[in-house]
């Protein structure tokens, strides 16, 4: 189930909320946990019930391995078996031409790996099956993270059951959900239309078009993914839970190291704990540190998708990361404002280029888009592509103002939306921070309600097809 759907907003979440707080009244932790797990499975299987048995099997197997590890002094064999089974099945579903890829398998597999690693390291002594079930299935984070660690989830349920309902936390979480929803539905999906058009019509693009496609995707993926995790954190918060921060204004970064402190934080943390450190981290000399870093980015590329383009994306980041780290050795980050702006702009540009390979259907297409930009052949911006920004609600305003007859009217909204999006990523507070500070005023509440309803009525559209043949 998607958070941005009628079924979630009007059916699942209200039912969940009532059931969750209803079951709390019985003061039986087990009842509430069982309810949460069952509902999460419904959430998980809503669009395709075939997902559920995969997740259940994964849970039974991993919990079995946990019990095996608990019994044995020598924990290596169960750990290796567990890692092999988890990563093997992830590989089978994701990297062979499997017709069926279980929803969120990349994310729940990593949750399982984190669980086994923490047990192996002795950070988890006992984890009863229900707590484990809550940790794995908790629906806000199940499909797209954030990748919470078992220690972060453990004990939250008990705390939630004990504490009385917190209106402030609920309001802030609700606002965070609405902000995330708007990022996804209003911004990411609008930008996505132009991006899809661009990559489907590469040959028709001039340099200006190609720059807009590249930039739009950079913005789209941020609003989409961070919007989703804002929603996840918001939903968890409305239930009294805390999920770890996943995005912290990454495009404000002055260099690539800072970028990775703000982009998909829980994934970086996962790789640091379970790959970088076991490889020796920075304890085995400078050269090994850089090699370990490159390995992490290589694996991260593979994790993001099957295809050489994801590896290129990962390595582009890895190489700049290593170079930056090497150059900054022993130095403090530059403090001058102008330097900061220049290096920030350079980083943003570099990240843009890397995203081209992440999004392009193939390496060839990625290179072809970059070539379009390098060719410096500018002209009128592609009419059809610009059309994706002309949302009806704003286009009618332009008509009412009678500026629609101006020859550049078709491009007004494209420019405005891109500017607004850029201002948000460069200057606005991170949604989590903003929601944490929002005042419960009448105006804010009205803005949030309008934003929410605006998103809701955007969930479905009237499909129209262009009819030519028959």
């Amino acid at each position, binding site marked *: 189930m998607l958070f941005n759907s*009628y079924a979630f907003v*009007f059916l699942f979440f209200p039912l969940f909320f009532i059931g969750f707080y209803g079951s709390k009244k019985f003061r039986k932790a087990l009842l509430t946990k069982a309810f949460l797990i069952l509902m999460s499975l419904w959430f998980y299987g809503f669009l395709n019930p075939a997902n559920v048995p995969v997740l259940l099997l994964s849970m039974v197997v991993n919990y079995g391995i946990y019990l095996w590890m608990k019994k044995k002094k020598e924990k290596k064999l169960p750990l290796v078996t567990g890692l092999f089974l988890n990563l093997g099945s992830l590989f089978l579903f994701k990297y062979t031409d499997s017709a069926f890829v279980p929803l969120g398998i990349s994310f729940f597999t990593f949750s399982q790996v984190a669980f086994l690693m923490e047990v192996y390291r002795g950070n988890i002594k006992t984890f009863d099956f229900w707590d484990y079930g809550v940790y794995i299935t908790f629906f806000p984070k199940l499909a797209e993270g954030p990748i919470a660690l078992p220690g972060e989830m453990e004990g939250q349920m008990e705390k939630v059951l004990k504490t009385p309902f917190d*209106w*402030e936390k*609920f*309001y802030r979480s*609700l606002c965070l959900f609405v902000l995330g929803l708007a990022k996804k539905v209003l911004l990411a999906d609008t930008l996505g239309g132009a991006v899809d058009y661009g990559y489907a019509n590469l040959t028709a693009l001039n340099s200006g078009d190609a720059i807009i496609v590249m930039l739009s995707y950079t913005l789209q993926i941020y609003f989409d993914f961070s919007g989703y995790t804002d929603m996840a954190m918001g939903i968890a918060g409305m239930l009294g839970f805390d999920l770890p921060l996943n995005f912290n204004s990454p495009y404000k970064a002055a260099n690539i190291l800072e970028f990775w402190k703000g982009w998909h934080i829980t994934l970086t943390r996962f790789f640091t704990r379970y790959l970088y450190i076991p490889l020796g981290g920075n304890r085995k000399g400078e050269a090994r540190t850089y090699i370990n870093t490159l390995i992490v980015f290589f694996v991260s590329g593979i994790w993001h998708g099957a295809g050489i383009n994801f590896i290129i994306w990962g390595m582009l980041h890895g190489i700049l990361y290593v170079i930056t780290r090497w150059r900054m050795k022993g130095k403090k980050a530059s403090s001058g404002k102008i330097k900061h702006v220049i290096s920030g702009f350079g980083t943003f540009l570099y990240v843009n280029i890397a995203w081209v390979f992440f999004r392009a259907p193939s390496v060839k297409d990625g290179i072809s888009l970059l070539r379009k930009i390098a060719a410096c052949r500018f002209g009128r911006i592609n009419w059809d592509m610009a059309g994706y920004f002309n949302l*009806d*609600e704003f286009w*009618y305003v332009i008509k*009412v103002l009678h500026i629609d007859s101006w020859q550049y009217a078709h491009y007004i909204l494209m420019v405005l939306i891109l500017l607004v999006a850029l201002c948000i990523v460069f200057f606005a507070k991170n949604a989590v921070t903003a929601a944490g500070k929002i005042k*419960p*005023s*009448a105006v*804010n*509440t*009205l803005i*949030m*309600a*309008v934003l*929410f*309803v*605006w998103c*809701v*009525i*955007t*969930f*479905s*559209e*009237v*499909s*129209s*097809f262009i*009819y*030519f*043949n*028959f």
Partner: protein
Amino acid sequence: MRNMQKKEVRKNPFKRAVMGFMGLAAAFCIVIAALVVFVDPFFHYHKPLSGFPYLIDNQLSQNPGMAAHMDYDSVILGSSMTVNFNTDWFKELMGLNTIKLSYSGAFPKDQSNIMKIIFNGNHQVKKVFLGVDVITYTGGVEETKYPIPEYLYDNNYFNDIQYVLNKDVLLNYILRPLADPDPTNLATVYASWWTEEYYSEQWVLHNYTSPEQVLEKTAADAYIPGVKANLDVNICPFIEDNPNTQFVVFFPPYSILYWNDVLKENHLEATMEEYRYIAERLNEYDNVEVYFFPDREDIILDLNHYADYSHYHPDYNRFMTECFTNGTGLVAKNGDEEGKTIDEYLSHMREIVDEFDFEELLARK
């Protein structure tokens, strides 16, 4: 107790804000949904309001509601071959109050979907005019040309939320018509956008690409199983269940270029057999009349009558409407003395195709 609660709300600004949000969001949703239900631009719940300038341009979304809630005693069904019928002609020539429910590119399943709604209502349907495009009858019985918005086709009220809380519906079908009224004329609804100058040989040939010659010939009976399944499942049940409704089935006149495609794709025999099968099969019913127009040389040989290889000028929609009145092009039923048999029509068609100089026509390009 109640007073205490009220006090608490006042004391806790966050509780007040949450309640405010819920109240406002609910109120906005209710207002929008109520407006959609009241105006009902897709006629999902009721007849059109008198005086509202409805915009009708979406076959997939608006046909089901029109079929369910408008007044009519006959319907036009079919693909884009039917969009240029003017329903006023049906009134003028046959005294019928006709509604046009075309689906561009329609597959038999699309016809079945809409006939289900037509015949489930309280309409006394005198006539159904059904255009049959043979190429669409060979596919799967469950296939629709485009994914349909299920929520407008079923009786489930819950999924109607996709209709009542829908920005497109609100902006494009309620607010835009109010701000800039240009009500659709039902007589000419869905008419194609081609203006007169597009109906020219030059334009048609300019956009036409002759297919590659296929070497392997399609067997004469290759299409019959698929066509039979489609008739069995999607068409005939409605004919059988509605003996008081007259079904006027017609094969439209595509240009000679269509037959160039058939020859190049090497399925002339199979195509002929398909025409024969459909005509014979449907002609078995007393409440069916079959019309055959593909062999109208006066129409199909002149590309100035077309906007592309298959779409003819609205004049020929008028012509066909007249034929439905005077019986021109009628396929004689078995044992019927009057009119040509399907065999006679098909052998005439074959003669045209055999004798036509395709090379010469394509050389004019």
